[in-house]
């Protein structure tokens, strides 16, 4: 069975000793993210995010289905994360690794269960027809920070995505093609950002955005999800105990970082919108305009 290469003792000690002096192997500050880059595809909802050497591709798609029996007034939103051998030969097709389960559950908790996407706005006819939005997360290169990268990429892709416009006339539903009517953006309630903190030396050293090798030597990790205003989610899955004061400090760091990242995503989205807005016609074609 191909396995992920375990970090050698020499490298482990080197990273830990450097961290004792507040030095990271790649020269970053302790609370510095790697270079973030966001690319949008030609399609709406196609996003590629690079966080250092980590690369995540997200594709959003929409289709009309029947809503769930117990939730007649809501649309469906699913996040699919499947790690493939493209990122590392250790990921096998059809076999869930622990990392994969943690990744998908955390994303589910941070984005879906925090109601980032307003599922009620996806309802077309209560109990009969609704939109089903699906986010496929493809990890192309994994060098640590998968949770942070995937979360930013999904939220950016959701904000980039446009679903076809629909009109309801009694029982009849008309779905307009992209050529007939300008597609409509999804209604987002808030923009969650996951920030992973890694702890070393009994919580004395706290790192943001650890690389794969830094992840391998950490004593504990904690994932905080924040939006522009508040903390949405805390996940601390095992590892050493963390002092309450450290946690509070992490929260304020996360809030500041979250704002910074959301600002970056908004800037990239605006750049993409101007690129698409050939001749300044988009404002005229808006679905909200009077016909």
């Amino acid at each position, binding site marked *: *069975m*191909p396995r992920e290469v375990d970090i050698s003792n020499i490298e482990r000690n080197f990273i830990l000793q450097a961290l004792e002096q507040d030095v990271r192997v790649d020269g970053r500050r302790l609370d510095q993210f790697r270079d973030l880059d966001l690319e949008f*595809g*030609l*399609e*709406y*909802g*196609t996003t*590629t995010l690079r966080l250092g*050497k980590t*690369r995540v*591709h997200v*594709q*959003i*798609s*929409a*289709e*009309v289905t029947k809503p769930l029996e117990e939730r007649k007034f809501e649309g469906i939103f699913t996040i*699919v994360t*499947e790690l*493939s*051998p*493209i*990122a*590392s*030969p250790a990921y*096998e*097709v059809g076999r869930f690794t622990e990392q994969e389960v943690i990744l998908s559950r955390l994303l589910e908790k941070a984005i879906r269960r925090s109601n980032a996407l307003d599922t009620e706005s996806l309802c077309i006819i209560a109990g009969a027809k609704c939109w089903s939005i*699906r986010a*496929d997360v*493809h990890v*192309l*290169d*994994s*060098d640590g920070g998968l949770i942070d990268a995937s979360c930013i990429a999904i939220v950016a892709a959701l904000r980039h*995505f*446009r*679903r*076809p416009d629909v009109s309801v006339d009694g029982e009849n539903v008309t*779905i*307009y*093609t*992209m*050529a007939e009517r300008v*597609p409509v953006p999804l209604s987002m309630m808030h923009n969650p950002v996951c920030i992973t903190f890694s702890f070393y030396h009994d919580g004395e050293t706290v790192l943001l955005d650890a690389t794969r090798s830094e992840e391998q030597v950490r004593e504990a990790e904690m994932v905080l999800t924040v939006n522009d205003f508040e903390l949405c989610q805390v996940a601390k899955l095992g590892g050493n105990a963390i002092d309450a004061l450290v946690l509070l400090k992490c929260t304020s760091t996360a809030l500041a970082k979250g704002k910074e990242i959301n600002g970056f995503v908004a800037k990239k989205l605006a750049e993409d919108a101007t690129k698409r807005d050939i001749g300044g016609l988009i404002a005229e074609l808006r679905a909200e305009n009077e016909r």
Partner: protein
Amino acid sequence: MALTEPPKAILHTLLKADGSATYTAPKNGYQVVAGVNYPVEVPYRSDEIPESTFIEVNLRPHNGVGMVKERHMEELVTRTLQTIVLGDETPRTMLQITLQVVNVESDESLPGGVKGGGQGETYLDLLASALNAAVLGCVDAGVQMKAIAGAALVGICPDGRMVVGPSVVQRKKCASLHVFAFTSDSQTVLMESEGKFTMDDWKQAERAARSAVLGSVNKQDNGDVTMNGTNITSGSSGNCLLDVIRQALEARVIKGGNR
């Protein structure tokens, strides 16, 4: 008939995989990222081949999970690669190829977001791109091969016109679709057809695909092709698929040499 717009190929687009490539079909069509791990241990002993390399291909659609159609394409790509890869160089190991579709061409006249690639629809359009991406990935990973292979998609319009690498709208109008793959020594290694066509149509499509893949190769007497870059830009063959692969490799090698 050469390709009107050549496809794009870039080698080594990923960092973790042993070899990787990004292939973009002409006219903003399919974009496939290939990641190749070679040679790796075979996960199940029963798959191990004592005298050859076990080839595993995973094709992952851009949305949804792979089903029957993807499995079928994986099988076709695997079998084509088996004919060109020198498996006995690395016996008892695995050549693992993951093909990730990252972009599809959408049909704006259809309602709904990203369309195409449904289980009921044709698989031929993606097959050519998948095979080309797989071969490029193998080239980058240093897989030892007898020859390079390339595939082309040819559509035949109802009026009998041949379209090499048809766009999504053109594909819909085509009476039949064909995929042919040839090795660099002009052997046919894959042929798949769909739709209604006559034997003459098929032969014509084969010729069209052959020139799209191989071009009019200026082979030297010893069978080698000059790689100094000058005769590619000035030559008449210009933009056939093998030239694209050659250029991608040159770009990779020269970039590597400067570092």
